[in-house]
Each structure stands twice: as structure tokens, then as C-alpha cells.
């Protein structure tokens, strides 16, 4: 029996650490229990081949919440960006690449450029209207709705109404529509449309023509990093350095972090969470248990359905959380060459999504449990701006690829090698010499991501980011205000509002709820 804590946090992913830091700062006695040898969850830098390191899960920083950054003084705790405000380059087979950065786009017609600037500005404004929701507890609707819920709902309504009559109408027109229609209304460049589609569907089980893909795009744009909304950054030393800073912040505030301590179950007494049991039998008692694990793992595996009402269990069980993203890591013995890219461009985020149709066709396969024949991809070569990741003169390439469905009909064991080769061939269309430069290659399918990071379905958002699983529906009604139906148990991971990405908002909001509801 370990000494009693105020709060035991199950899982030391970035949200768990954020939550721990806030709670410890508020004077709570906190312990973080992480299964792996290192904290970080899916926000981690790992060696995948001798001398080569890579962000093994999330590899780009879109939206580390500025409040988290400031409140926890993460820069003081060692967080540094290796690159800031990355450009997105939509790769073209003929070398006529299209580069997007903020409102500007190069490589398209003046009409497209104007239309893009216009759309970008508008989307940012819409996303900004949603942004306050990120750091808010989503309101409870219907029975039991309190004053705070009414205020939260009114605030959301007001921030949309404040866009003005014309803009509000436009917001309401596009918010649930599909990104393909939105792009086709405005642009002629296939590359531009392809890149926009890719951004809207990445990490979801949606294609460009699926309804509500404009909302997922807005969600992505709602975040901000390094003082700019919709920007993209690379942390120095990979994503692991973000979690390292978070861990330092948490420990500096007094939280205890125990790695290599897998939680086997959440303990219940008298209808209240009273601690956790570890693999091997150790019991850690705590007044409050906060879970950074995904909702299915938390409720169905660690807690167990029998402590919950069947209607709630039904909703958790039906949560859509099958990942569609594979991760590819290449160790290269030289600098990759992509004809037609400037130095600034190749250091950016490279997107292979030649057109809406190609992304949609890639999604078609996923609908039927097959891996895409021509996957869409996002590549970064972080070692270009961060020499700590690879030996001198050598490089790492990190890619995410869609669609790689979790429940592959043929099974991943039989498909892994051919899919890996398919991705390399796909990159080779743009970087013809890449194959000869490969020293080592690692493919992480959703199955591998599930195993390595303990995320159900290998879903990096711990559950689809779709309109029916957002806000007060995230993860499911009844647990959307971080508190689980079982007293003393809370969620703080990406499965909770506002969802995934290395943002930390879920951890921050959850900590706020624990402080408000749980007496010390």
C-alpha cells in the first residue's frame, strides 16, 4: 500500500502531465503513473535506428495552448522551437510545387491566390470564434443545466453572432459542409485543393467529400502556436522535449512522476474511485483518479462496465475510435533531394495530396477495410533544422500517411511490408533518389500505435474528431465535463474536449474541474 495521494493520474502523456502540473500548483499531492519507461505518451522522441531519433507519435506542433505554455512556464523548463511558422508545400510531380504560408500561397494563379487569402482570413476568423471553447468546460444540456452551462452556451452563440450577420450566415452555411465543396467553390489549382482537403481529413475517418470536414479544418486552425493562429512549429529535440518540459514543470510544482508503473485497474469503494491497482498488485490510494487514457480503455478496461450504467457503457462502446493513420520513419544517410524545392521549402511541411479526387480515392479503400493504393502523406525532415536528431550529414524523415485502417481486412501482419514499400515508392515520386539513401525504415500502423502508446484503435485523437463526438458530445454525454459518472474519476486525455493534438487544453480543463469539484 502506497501513501495516499490527493490525485492519481493514470498515464503520463502530455495531457496527464499538464493536468498534474496544474493540480500540483494548486497544492494537491499528485502522482502520475505511466506504463512506459518514459513519459510523453504519443508525444515522444524515440530512437528508431542507432543514432537516429524522431518524434514517434505526433511530429508537428499546431496548437500547444498558449495558456498552458504561460501558466506552466514551459520555456523556462526547457521548451524551445527548432522551427516556427513552417510553410506547407503541396508537392507536384512536375516540380511546380504550391507553397502555403499564412494567407499567402505561391505557385497558383492570381485568382486562386486572392481567393485563398480571402478564405484563409475568413476561416481564421471563424476558428477564432470557436477558440474560446477550447479552454472551456463544454456546457451540459437539458436536464441539470446550470447557470455556468447556460453562460458557456451563450458565449459560444455570442462569439458566432459577433461575426456579424453576413459572416455568421457564411459560418453556418459552411460549418457542417464538406471541404471538397468548399475548395471547389473557390479554387482551380488541384494541388491547393488537395492540400486543403488533406488538412481537413488528416487523423479522421473522413474523406474530403464527407460532411463536416470543414469543421475539422476549423478545429485545426483554432489552435495557435508561437503567438500565431494556424501556425505550425517543430520543437527542438522533437516532441519529446515538449513532454520533458511538461514533466519538469509538473515535478517542479511538486508532482511525483512514476514511469514503468502500468495501472491495471481503477479501484472502487462505496461507489467512488479510491485509487488504482498496478500490475504486480501494488495499490496506490488517492481521493481522486484522473485518467489520461482514452475513454474506452478508462471505462471498459481499467474501471469495468459493472461500475457504470449500461446506457453510458453503450455510448462508450460505440465511440468511433479506429485510427486511419500510419507513421513512417526513414533514417537517411544523406540529405534528401526533392527537385524544385528551395531550402526554406524543404524545411517545411511537405504534403502529398495531388488532388481532392486522389485523397477521396485513398479514403474509398479505407471505407472497405483496405489500405489506400495511393496514400496521401505529410512529410517533415526535422533534422534539417535540428541536428540533434541524426548523426552529422545524415537525416531523418518523418511521415504520416492516410489511409491505413486499423481493422484492415487482410490484417497488418500480411500487409505491413508492402504498405511500407508503397509509402517509400510514393515519396520516391517526388524524391527520386530517396530509396538509395535509406539506412533504416520503421512503419507504425494503427495496430502498432495502439500497442506502443496504449491508445484504443491506434487513434491519435483517442476517438474520432467528428461533429457528433465534439464539444458536449465528447467523448460521450455523461462524461463531457471531465467528470465520469463514477464519483472521484475524471478524464483528462484527448478523448475529452477539446480533443487531440499536442495542445494540453484537455489536461488544463480537467485540472480546473478537479480543483472546483474535489475538496482537498
Amino acid at each position, binding site marked *: 500500500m502506497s501513501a495516499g495521494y490527493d490525485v492519481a493520474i493514470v498515464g503520463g502523456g502530455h495531457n496527464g502531465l499538464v493536468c498534474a502540473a496544474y493540480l500540483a500548483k494548486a497544492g494537491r499531492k499528485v502522482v502520475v503513473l505511466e506504463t512506459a519507461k518514459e513519459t510523453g505518451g504519443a508525444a515522444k522522441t524515440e530512437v528508431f535506428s542507432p543514432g537516429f531519433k524522431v518524434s514517434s507519435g505526433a511530429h508537428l506542433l499546431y496548437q500547444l495552448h498558449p495558456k498552458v505554455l504561460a501558466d506552466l512556464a514551459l520555456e523556462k523548463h526547457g521548451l524551445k522551437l527548432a522551427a516556427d511558422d513552417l510553410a506547407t508545400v503541396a508537392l507536384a510531380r512536375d516540380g511546380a510545387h504550391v507553397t502555403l504560408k499564412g494567407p499567402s500561397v505561391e505557385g497558383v494563379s492570381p485568382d486562386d491566390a486572392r481567393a485563398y487569402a480571402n478564405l484563409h482570413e475568413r476561416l481564421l476568423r471563424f476558428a477564432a470564434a470557436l477558440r474560446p471553447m477550447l479552454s472551456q468546460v463544454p456546457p451540459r444540456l*437539458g*436536464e441539470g443545466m446550470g447557470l455556468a452551462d447556460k453562460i458557456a452556451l451563450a458565449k459560444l452563440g455570442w462569439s458566432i453572432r459577433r461575426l456579424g450577420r453576413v459572416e455568421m450566415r457564411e459560418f453556418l452555411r459552411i460549418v457542417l459542409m464538406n471541404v471538397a465543396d468548399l475548395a471547389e467553390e473557390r479554387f482551380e489549382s488541384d494541388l491547393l485543393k488537395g492540400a486543403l482537403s488533406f488538412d481537413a481529413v488528416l487523423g479522421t475517418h473522413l474523406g474530403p467529400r464527407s460532411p463536416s470536414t470543414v469543421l475539422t479544418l476549423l478545429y485545426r486552425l483554432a489552435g495557435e502556436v508561437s503567438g500565431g493562429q494556424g501556425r505550425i512549429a517543430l520543437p527542438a529535440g522533437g516532441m519529446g522535449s515538449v513532454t520533458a518540459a511538461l514533466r519538469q514543470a509538473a515535478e517542479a510544482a511538486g508532482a511525483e512522476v512514476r514511469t514503468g508503473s502500468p495501472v491495471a485497474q481503477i479501484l472502487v469503494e462505496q*461507489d467512488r474511485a479510491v485509487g488504482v491497482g498496478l500490475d504486480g498488485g501494488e495499490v496506490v490510494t488517492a481521493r481522486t483518479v484522473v485518467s489520461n487514457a482514452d475513454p474506452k480503455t478508462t471505462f*471498459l478496461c481499467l474501471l*469495468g*462496465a*459493472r*461500475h*457504470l*450504467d*449500461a*446506457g*453510458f*457503457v*453503450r455510448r462508450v*462502446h460505440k465511440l468511433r475510435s479506429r485510427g486511419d493513420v500510419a507513421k513512417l520513419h526513414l533514417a537517411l544517410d544523406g540529405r534528401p533531394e526533392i527537385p524544385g524545392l528551395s531550402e526554406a521549402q524543404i524545411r517545411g511541411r511537405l504534403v502529398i495530396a495531388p488532388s481532392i479526387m486522389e485523397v477521396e480515392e485513398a479514403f474509398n479503400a479505407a471505407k472497405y477495410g483496405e489500405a489506400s493504393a495511393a496514400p496521401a502523406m505529410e512529410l517533415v525532415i526535422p533534422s534539417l533544422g535540428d541536428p540533434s536528431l541524426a548523426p552529422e550529414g545524415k537525416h531523418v524523415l518523418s511521415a504520416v500517411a492516410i489511409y491505413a485502417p486499423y481493422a484492415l481486412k487482410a490484417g497488418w501482419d500480411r500487409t505491413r511490408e508492402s504498405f511500407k514499400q508503397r509509402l517509400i515508392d510514393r515519396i520516391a515520386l517526388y524524391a527520386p533518389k530517396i530509396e538509395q539513401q535509406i539506412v533504416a525504415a520503421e512503419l507504425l500502423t494503427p495496430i502498432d500505435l495502439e500497442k506502443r502508446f496504449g491508445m484504443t484503435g491506434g487513434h491519435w485523437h483517442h476517438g474520432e474528431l467528428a461533429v457528433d463526438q465534439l464539444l458536449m458530445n465528447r467523448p460521450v454525454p*455523461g462524461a463531457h465535463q471531465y467528470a465520469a*459518472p463514477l464519483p472521484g474519476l475524471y478524464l483528462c486525455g484527448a478523448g475529452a474536449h477539446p480533443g487531440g493534438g499536442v495542445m494540453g487544453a484537455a489536461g488544463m480543463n480537467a485540472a480546473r474541474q478537479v480543483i472546483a469539484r474535489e475538496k482537498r
Partner: protein
Amino acid sequence: MPLDVEQEHYKVRVRGTPFHERTAALNLNNDWQRWAGYTVPNSYFNSELEYFAIRNAATLYDVSPMIKYRISGAEAEAYCNRLVTRDVAKLKPGRVAYVVWCNDAGHALDDGTLFRLGESEFRLCCQERHLDWLLDCALGFDVAVEEVTWDIAGLALQGPASCALLRRCGLEGLEQLKPFDVRDFDLDGQKLSISRTGFTGDLGYELWMAPEAALPVWDRLFEAGTLHGLRPAGSAALDLARIEAGFILPTVDFVPADQALRHTRGRSPFELGLEWLVDFGKGHFNGRRALLDEKKKGSQYCLVGLDIQGNKAAPHALIYHGQNVEVGQITSAMWSPTCKKNIALASFRRPYGDSIRTDLWVEIYVLKELKWDKLMVRCKVVDRPFFAPERRRATPPGDF
């Protein structure tokens, strides 16, 4: 790939029960009622006389359409305990319990009888279908749930002479069955499971058998029943008996929570007079947290029995306090020939019917030769059951 589903079912829209051949022959009124996809007689010859046979002799009522689920497996007890509000651990094999089960909000989904047939085997009998709910309840439990409605034919043999009749058939030791006991018997080579249960509030038994045994058992009972005044009884007669017994019926006295379009139409066990079925001490069960909360804050409604002035039955009538404030509604009502009272079940908005029980009035409309007469009569809240003869509990029962 051939589909493992019935594809010809639509050709028969409504089924007959395994007793249909016999019930159809006896149904002189040709008066049928649909019940869960089957037809059963609403009345055979005269529902009043059938009712009097329930109270004074013996009757057979075809309960085959009753929805039945088999729940089995190592964790069947834990499963049932999470499903229903009662403590199933206290239910021993060979016993039956009246149970109610709730959704997350603590609103009743249905009530029914839970048979414990073995250490790890249960049968749940109820009116409404719940397979999807029961299967979702099975998540995380080592248990199998299957619907066995059409695999088991059922007959309710009810009335003061029912025990004597069964003994005449040669069922040894039947008289030792206590209320809510269930045991296996052999009737001329037919395997029967007999429970001392029923929906009449009288002495009575329910007989459960394979569909193949249905007709031989029916015939044997009628052969033995002549001297005991055995009659077939239809649903109309049964409904009179069940109101006198004070039993509530889903969709009549309450709306099953999963059928309520309006959240506020759901009713908790506290609001149905079933608080005695709720055991907070047994660990978690569906709706427990909501019910605890309700217990703390107080319930909104209550369901009680009424004795109404006069002799005009008052189905669906509105109830007033001081003749002008609407406070409740009658859900089931009848003139009770046995009690010689005008009785009803009614749902009240608390505190009416609960702490305020005086100055309550029922508004009854009576059609007299195409002219509506409106009556405003007094009623008083009374205990249920309205009719509770000693013989329903006596073991061994008297030999009528």
C-alpha cells in the same frame, strides 16, 4: 454467403401460439388480441364469467407470447444484479423474484419476473422486448443472453381450484410449492416447469414447457379440470383480476423509459410504488446514482390505489384537488365485483396522493344513450392489493 436469418417470416404477420389449435376451437366469440406478434383470445365466451372462474374455480390463460430471455454463464448473477434494482444474490435457485429494471436516469424500462433456474442460469419474463438493452448490459460480463420466447410455451393456471386440479393430474408434491417457488415436474411423460406465480393475485401456477408438449398438456388439464370448473380465460378477464391484485402494467400504468418520447414521461421505481424493490446496499446497478439522487431530492410522482365513490368505472379519468386543481390521472380502473368497490390505479403529481390525500375528486364521463353525463366524485387513497385472499399464500393450498 448465405444469410443466417429467417427470410420467410414476413409471410406470416402474426403468429398463433403453440396452443392456438385449442384456443381457437374454444374461442366462441372469435375475439382476439395481439400480443408481441402473436394472437391470444381477448375473451372466449364472456369475459365477466371468465373473470368469475378465475376467482371461484380455475382458468387457463395462454401466456406463451410473454417475452422470455435466458441469461446464463459464470457471471449471470452479477449480471442480473447490475440489471435489476433488487438484490439477486438473495434469490436462491428454484425461486422467482418480481423485479424492475431501469435506464441510466433511474426510469423503469419494464417489470417482470426473474426465475433462478440454477446457480448460473436465469430466465427473465417480461412484457416488452429488451434484447438490445440486455445485450449491451452484457458488455464486460462473462454471460450469454438469448431470447427464448418461442422456445417455451406458457400456461397460467389460476384460481382457487388450481392446486387441486394439478394434483388430480398426478403431480406429486405440487402442494409444497410456496409462492415464487419454481420446480420441474413430469406430467404423463411431458417435462414441465411449474412456478407458483401469476398475474391474478389469487392462488395459481404458471406452467412452462416445450412447444411440442403444449397440446398434450392442454388436453390433460382440461380432462382433469372438468370437475373443478376449469374454463379458458382471455386477456380481458385477466386484466380485471390483475387490477384487483394491484399489479401495474407497462404501457398502461407507466411508459417504459425507452418508449417515452419525452424524457419527463419516464417513471422511477419510487414513482411507481416499487421502492421496496430498490436495494442500494448491494453495489452498483443501472440507474443507482440517479435513484440515490432522486431519493435525496424527492420524487415528482407517485402511483397509488384509489377507492372511488359510486359504481362508474373511471378509466383515464383526471383527478382534481378541491375539484379544480388537476393533480393526477387514472391509469387502470374497474368496478370490482369481488371487492364490491370502484377501484383504480392512479398516477399523482406529488405531494398529491402522497402527503395530501384529502379533498381528491375524480371527473368521470359516462355515456348514457349518446348523452355524456359528467360526474365529479370523491376518491380516497387505499392500500394495494385491493383483493388479497389468504389462499394465495397458504401452503399447502386448500383443496377446492
